């Protein structure tokens, strides 16, 4: 009995320690964000931010675009097979447009960025921990959060919402292609249908989610890296943990945001 209590207590303390570490790091990185800004910040951090934008954003475009196209086709086909039976094939436009702007765009993007970048952040920082590069930074009077994390944070805050827009466009375009081939609906009519089905609120909620997901991915990925102790195998473990934890937290955050928007939106 005592052993179970001890285990529960130990596990609880570990989780609290993790959440505490995440909160402290988030606060430190928000304070450090200014150094990564152009003009007012440090030009080397801004240059590093641009490199990160390329790595997190530009290099993810093919993957996010293809995932969105495939998901758009799947959603349109699955929706059409049911809606056709009740003679409401036209609702496929609403289904795809609303699903992507509110939900699938941010979520698919977050999963892609989590898989690509959270693991990369954790591997990079973890390796720096193992090779004492982070210690070297501290000794040279650099703050590792400013030097390593802030450029990644700024880059993710900028490029993840952009990737979400791309994901939405590709997903909705896939629905349009499906509608063209299945019902000969013209592109103009499809776009008109999309514009009438989505509201500004859908776009804003999707944007808020994308920013929150970017925060989660960067903070979890970097924290896993900073917590690496030991050798190369610890880096491997942290890389896996970064992807698993960031994806899990993204889905939890998505559920929370969706619930908040649902109950405050008068649905």
């Amino acid at each position, binding site marked *: 009995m005592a052993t179970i209590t001890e285990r529960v207590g130990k596990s609880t303390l570990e989780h609290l320690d993790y959440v505490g570490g995440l909160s402290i790091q988030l606060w430190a990185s928000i304070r450090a964000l200014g150094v990564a800004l152009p003009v007012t910040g440090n030009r080397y951090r801004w240059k590093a931010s641009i490199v990160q934008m390329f790595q997190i954003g530009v290099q993810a475009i093919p993957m996010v675009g293809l995932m969105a196209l495939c998901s758009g086709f799947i959603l349109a086909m699955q929706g059409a097979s049911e809606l056709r039976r009740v003679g409401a094939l036209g609702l496929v436009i609403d289904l795809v447009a609303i699903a992507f702007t509110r939900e699938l765009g941010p979520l698919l993007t977050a999963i892609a960025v989590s898989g690509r970048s959270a693991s990369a952040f954790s591997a990079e920082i973890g390796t720096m921990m193992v090779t*004492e590069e982070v*210690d*070297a930074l501290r000794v040279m009077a650099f703050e590792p959060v400013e030097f390593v994390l802030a450029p990644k944070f700024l880059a993710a805050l900028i490029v993840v919402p952009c990737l979400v827009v791309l994901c939405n466009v590709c997903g909705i375009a896939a629905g349009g292609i499906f509608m063209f081939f299945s019902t000969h609906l013209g592109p103009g009519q499809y776009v008109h249908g999309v514009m009438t089905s989505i509201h500004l609120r859908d776009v804003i909620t999707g944007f808020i989610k994308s920013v929150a997901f970017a925060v989660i991915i960067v903070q979890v990925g970097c924290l896993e890296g900073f917590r690496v102790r030991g050798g190369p195998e610890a880096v491997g473990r942290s890389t896996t943990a970064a992807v698993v934890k960031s994806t899990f937290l993204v889905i939890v955050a998505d559920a929370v945001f969706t619930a908040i928007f649902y109950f405050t939106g008068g649905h």
Partner: protein
Amino acid sequence: MAIISIHDLVVEYGGRRVLDGLSLDIEPGETMVLLGGSGSGKSTLMRHIIALERPKSGSISVKGVDITRCSQADLKRVRRSMGVAFQDGALFNSLSVEDNVALPLREHTSLAPSIINLAVWMNLAAVGLADFGKLLPQELSGGMKKRAAVARALALDPEILIFDEPSSGLDPIVAAELDELILFLKQAFQMTVIVVTHELPSAFRIADRIAMLYNGSFIAVGTKEEIKGNQNPRIRQFLDRIPDNSAPARAIEAYFEKYVQSPEVKP
């Protein structure tokens, strides 16, 4: 007045006492070697002198500033007067050797790029790497990496230069070259030098004074001659390379005897 003053330093990890009430004064311009076997606490002491960790109790004053209790701003100021060459160099692998050396100059000074380039070349020349600035750290040998780390540590013209295991992993010739480099740097730049090592030839070549650590305590602090003549059994054991316990050797011998007698070996 001592440039570094350690007073009653106690360090514990998970309730285990690693450093037990250490006190030591390091005078300006002297070369202090922290000598001791594996697990004696010398690297832990070094990590506390460069404020990478906080002790349980006690104080470390560097240039009159207690780095265990000072503000982050004061700590940064103190750190800029220190240069540290880590055991494996801790060079940033994504930067060339000259960019590694230039990094603290670019970030912490307002020097013109041409002056920075000149300072980088001079520091690389001082460690014999003037022709290797364009290479990446992974293209250097172990000894060259350590010398590049010294060049980076010299970048901000520090008053205190700290070496963590400078000879480890190097062949005797390269290790001797590094010893001569340390002596040259001390003579040329009039720095206070702290060297953490367990290599006896290296320690006796470069030291002005030696502080011998055993189980987290100083068992002797004195000049090379005083340490060589010290009759403390632990010091004699270390200097005369006497194994701690011959029981494992006997156990291995017994194991092999048993193995040789076994049916597997006997036809």
